[in-house]
């Protein structure tokens, strides 16, 4: 069984009227690059945080390398899973090097200083993310793309087999978006890492990810069943190869929009078209 991470019938709600996830059940094999997609409120971030051990599901559990996630403890999890969230400027002016070094905090010696191995790991992470030349700059002085790469470098410095990312490219421009995904792909290849990224961008995910998990939003409000379960006819998610999951009909159903779909090479692309879009009345589009 090469499933490094297994999500077993996980259900989660933020409050009695706010179910978010219901019966999510899938397994990820070592070395896969998985995209977690879906509309706002479908639970992408929530699922990422549950997998990182930050939130605890009300029912179901997560198995990490065959053992229950809760049995690892904070440090145990940190040795195996690294989480990257959206870049931000922290309140205090640490430099890039200092920030990435912080990933090694649990491994510092008695007096709170890093060892040579720690430094080597950090330098390698900086090189991989092409941020070594920024090492002495303060985080606040970088562009968003550079900052996001620094946060990825910090996760890399944790030296974990699994990388979780929560919408790492949401506010970045095209160049940086592609740059980040290229980087992630190379990390997957060079370090045999397992990467799970929540993303809004279907097309990038198609081009870079091996598998995809598409989440549908749950019913909310007073009509929602009390135990958070979905109406019995459909599960809340679909998981499989990206080409299957990102089929245009599924995208339409999940997001509630019309899409125009075409093929690039081996992968498809989808283009959402609202009623007032210029090409909204092309023939051949499903209604």
């Amino acid at each position, binding site marked *: 069984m090469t499933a490094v991470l297994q999500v077993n019938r996980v259900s989660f709600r933020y409050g009695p009227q706010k179910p978010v996830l219901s019966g999510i059940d899938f397994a990820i094999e070592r070395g896969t690059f998985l995209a977690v997609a879906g509309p706002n409120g479908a639970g992408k971030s929530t699922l990422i945080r549950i997998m*990182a051990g*930050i939130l605890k599901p009300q029912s179901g559990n997560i198995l990490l390398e065959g053992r229950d996630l809760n049995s690892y403890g*904070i*440090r145990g*999890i*940190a*040795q195996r*899973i*690294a*989480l990257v*969230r959206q870049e*931000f*400027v*922290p*309140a*205090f*002016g*640490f*430099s890039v*090097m*200092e*920030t990435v*070094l*912080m*990933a090694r*905090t*649990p491994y*510092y010696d008695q*007096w*709170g*200083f890093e060892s040579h191995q720690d430094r080597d790991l950090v330098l390698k992470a900086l090189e991989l993310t092409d941020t070594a030349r920024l090492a*002495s700059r*303060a*985080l*606040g*002085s970088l562009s968003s793309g550079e900052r996001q790469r620094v946060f990825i470098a*910090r996760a890399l410095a*944790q030296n974990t087999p699994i990388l979780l990312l929560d919408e790492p490219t949401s506010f970045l421009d095209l160049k940086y978006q592609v740059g980040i995904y290229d980087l992630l792909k190379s990390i997957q290849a060079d370090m045999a890492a397992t990467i799970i990224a929540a993303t809004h961008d279907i097309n990038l995910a198609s081009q870079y990810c091996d598998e995809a998990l598409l989440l549908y939003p749950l019913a909310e409000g007073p009509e929602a069943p009390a135990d958070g379960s979905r109406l019995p006819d459909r599960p809340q998610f679909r998981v499989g190869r990206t080409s299957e999951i990102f089929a245009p009909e599924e995208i339409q159903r999940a997001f509630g929009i019309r899409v125009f779909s075409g093929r690039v090479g081996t992968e498809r692309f989808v283009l959402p078209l609202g009623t007032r879009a210029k090409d909204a009345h092309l023939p051949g589009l499903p209604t």
Partner: protein
Amino acid sequence: MQPLTPKILLFRTAVAALLLIAIMLACALVGSQDVSLRAVFRGPRDGATPSLDYEILMRVRIPRVLLAAMVGAALASSGVIFQALLRNPLADPYILGISSGAGLGAIIAVISGLSWTLWGRSPIAIFAFVGALGTVWLVWGIGRITGRHQVAGLLLAGVVVNAFFSAMIMFLVSIARGQQLYATIFWLMGNMTEEDLFVLWVGGGGILAGIVALFFLGPQLNIISVGHQDARSIGVSVERVELTAFAISAFITAVAVSLSGLIGFVGLIVPHAVRLLFGPDHRQLLPLSSLAGAMFLVVADTIARIVVAPAQLPVGVVTAMIGGPFFLFLLVRYSRRVYWPT
């Protein structure tokens, strides 16, 4: 900026420590009475009579300078911690109610007219200490109930408690007799007095132990000051570190406040200034801030002693008056290194 290495840290700490000792000695020799070193070295007795210079230096000046150093170090270190935990460079040790709690304790002691002493310390100090710690515990408890340790919950609890206790202080002040009133205001403005050796020993030991303990938490504080979630995903048990750091700094602040009243500015300005000059790494910020805080308060107290001699100003007045402009200067010169989140 170069990341910190043990060598750099040791060097800077050693230089700061030497500087502190030099300043303490220099300030001990300055005051409203002239003290000649030669007379001091001749010993405690000048022939048959006790030497005035020796007595003033050893029994008045040196204890006072030691106390100022201790309190300055405690307030500055505590300021570092509060700024890190609240992720806010404008926090100070009093922000969560320690000041009003201590003040309330002190006023209750004054008004109730108790006159017993514990180890020669008046009840004001004991009540202030208990008031400070009790308030912190209260604010922490309220913060837990409302926000599960989230910063906003704590700050709000602190504001509420501060407001309520301040109102009670104002009420008690309004019914105080003239002399009690002045004693209270005097205490609230912060002042250095000469304590006996035992108090200095115990207080100093407690504060030093607290600062060293906080230094041990340096790396965790670094990552916590960046973000909670980041810290947790890196493997730091955020709640345990926060609780420990918070408890230790509340303790040393309560000790400082019970020894010398409410001295403002030190806990806010000194960590900020050191951070501007040397960067936000807490492994360095803590030792350097405590030494800088000690230096600052020793100098401020000396100024308070000589500027209107033979009377003296409350130290809190001096720290505000020299702290403000000095900090402004630092901000203008070095702010390029700091990036404020928009």
